[in-house]
């Protein structure tokens, strides 16, 4: 577990999550450790295929059955120790203690039922009563106008932004301690994105909820994250407070990510990119998985670097961290 001294025990502390798929000895997720405190937002960033969504699905116990056999690792959730291979224990947390919202609001609601019913259903599953009042209150909280009438709408009668609000209402109707949002704004247009992010932030500040936000939008991260975990090829390569990650990135991959964001001011230069692509599971290098694309790679990178402290609450998995270079230097 990675923790700064004097910090309170995290709400969720994921320890050494690994996921292996039978014929391949190389783990898809390798020793992923994350933690998030109440009232804080952890952003998981990384390019497509780095294991962000797999991590969240493993925490929810929603991985496909054929992947479930390959899970190892534990999670401390609000003082309770849960093995990530224990599907029943995860199912008990799911929906009550941990809520989740998905990327595609257009297809994540059941077209056959009224939205009021769908929100109430989650309440009924875990509580007594029909949940109508709770559903109505949630619709009001997520800012849907005329909620009494909207309760009776079917999903096809709503826009994408409205549906994402309904999804959020469904995920939060049981007042979960942790909300996992897997790219909740990717499918929405920019103004609606801002509204949804504001809504999540506002709902979070009302309670003591922790949020894990999975995204590849660094602008979103800068805006709402408390801490950031950067994932690459199934490993956490850097983790720390949002200021440290943005101002003093230590892992070459994080540096690459930061410098591939187009600047708003200053001279226009060619945008720097991280060369190459994420290696496939068959071609995964031994040791540091970023070595094949890293400008600083040395023979020592053939061994796996540990996630070592480089600053207060800030850890990076690189043999050369802390680096003595600036972001501009790498770009």
């Amino acid at each position, binding site marked *: 577990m990675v923790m700064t001294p004097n910090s309170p025990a995290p709400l969720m502390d994921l320890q050494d999550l690994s996921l292996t798929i039978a014929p391949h000895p190389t783990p898809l997720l390798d020793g992923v450790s994350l933690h998030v405190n109440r009232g804080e937002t952890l952003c998981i960033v990384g390019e497509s295929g780095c294991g962000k969504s797999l991590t969240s699905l493993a925490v929810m116990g929603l991985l496909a059955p054929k992947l479930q056999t390959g899970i190892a690792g534990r999670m401390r959730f609000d003082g309770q120790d849960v093995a990530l291979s224990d599907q029943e224990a995860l199912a008990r947390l*799911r*929906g*009550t203690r941990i809520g989740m919202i*998905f990327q595609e609001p257009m*297809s994540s609601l*059941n077209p056959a039922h009224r939205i009021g019913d769908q929100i109430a259903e989650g309440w009924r599953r875990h509580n007594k009563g029909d949940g109508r009042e709770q559903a109505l209150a949630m619709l009001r909280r997520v800012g849907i106008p005329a909620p009494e*009438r909207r309760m009776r709408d079917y999903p096809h009668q709503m826009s994408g932004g409205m549906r994402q609000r309904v999804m959020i209402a*469904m995920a939060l109707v049981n007042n979960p301690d942790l909300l996992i949002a897997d790219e909740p704004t990717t499918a929405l247009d920019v103004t609606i994105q801002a509204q949804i992010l504001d809504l999540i932030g506002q709902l979070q500040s009302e309670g003591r909820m922790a949020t894990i936000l999975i995204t590849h939008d660094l602008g979103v991260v800068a805006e709402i994250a408390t801490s950031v975990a950067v994932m690459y090829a199934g490993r956490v390569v850097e983790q720390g407070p949002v200021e440290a990650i943005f101002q003093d990135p230590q892992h070459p991959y994080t540096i690459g990510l930061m410098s591939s964001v187009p600047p708003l001011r200053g001279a226009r230069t060619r945008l720097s990119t991280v060369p190459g692509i994420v290696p496939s599971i068959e071609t995964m290098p031994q040791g540091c998985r970023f070595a094949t694309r890293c400008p600083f790679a040395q023979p020592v990178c053939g061994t796996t670097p540990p996630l070592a402290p480089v600053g207060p609450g800030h850890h990076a998995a690189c043999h050369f961290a802390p680096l003595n270079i600036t972001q501009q230097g790498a770009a």
Partner: protein
Amino acid sequence: MTDMTADPVLERRPRSRVWRKLRGHRSALLGAIIVGIFALLAIAAPILPFPDPAAADWGAIRQPPSAAHWLGTDELGRDQLSRMIWGARASLMAGVVSVAIAIAIGVPLGILAGYFGGWTDAVISRCTEALLAIPFLILAIALAAFLGPSLTNAMIAIGIAATPVFIRLTRGQAISVAAEDYVESAHAIGLRTPVILRRYIFPNVLPPVLVQATLTIASAIIAEASLSFLGLGQQPPAPSWGAMLNTAKNFMTQAPWMAMWPGIAIFLVVLGFNLLGDGLRDALDPRED
């Protein structure tokens, strides 16, 4: 609440798209009217002022259509119109009940096979394929012969013979619905599998099942007529179109109307259900709008 009704977003409440498309579909409308007329006559048969369909009149056998007997009489002098209408009861009931049996067995099995996959699917699908290998009518005749001649047994036989089609159809639908995002989000709010099957999978596999049901009613009516023709369905003296055709074939030259009316009726009802089914298929198709 007055300020709410002024909201332009809330003002524009789309009416059911399916209903609108169905109403604009001419052939579906025609089908619905045909089916509706037969259904009304069948339901109203006991209160309509027609003679008893089983009452023989030896003074008026095999009479052509006349003012007294609008559709003529049969070889025992029974009123053909009355027998036609009572026969409609048997035909429509056989169609609806046997399809209800097929749906009641086929849809749950199809959902189980499609949702769980693996061994469940293998067992259900292999049995389905074995049944599908036998032609529908042959299977229905064999089952009816096995169960013994009666209208109830004929309906059971036709229902079982029609089941594999519904298992197949539902299984395919269930596989595609199970992969939908809303099923994953149902898992994410912690719903149990039975609830997911009942509230998420079941209603979303229904539209194509509804279309198939309408079309299968048409085949089931033909099957019932065939079974009755062979003496395996409705038993005399109770009237049925198939049984009427069977008797009528002996008098084709002397009294052709005896064969004509049941033939026309079967043709019209089957046409009606097929038109209705086609219209439903178009209306429920989300691709064209």
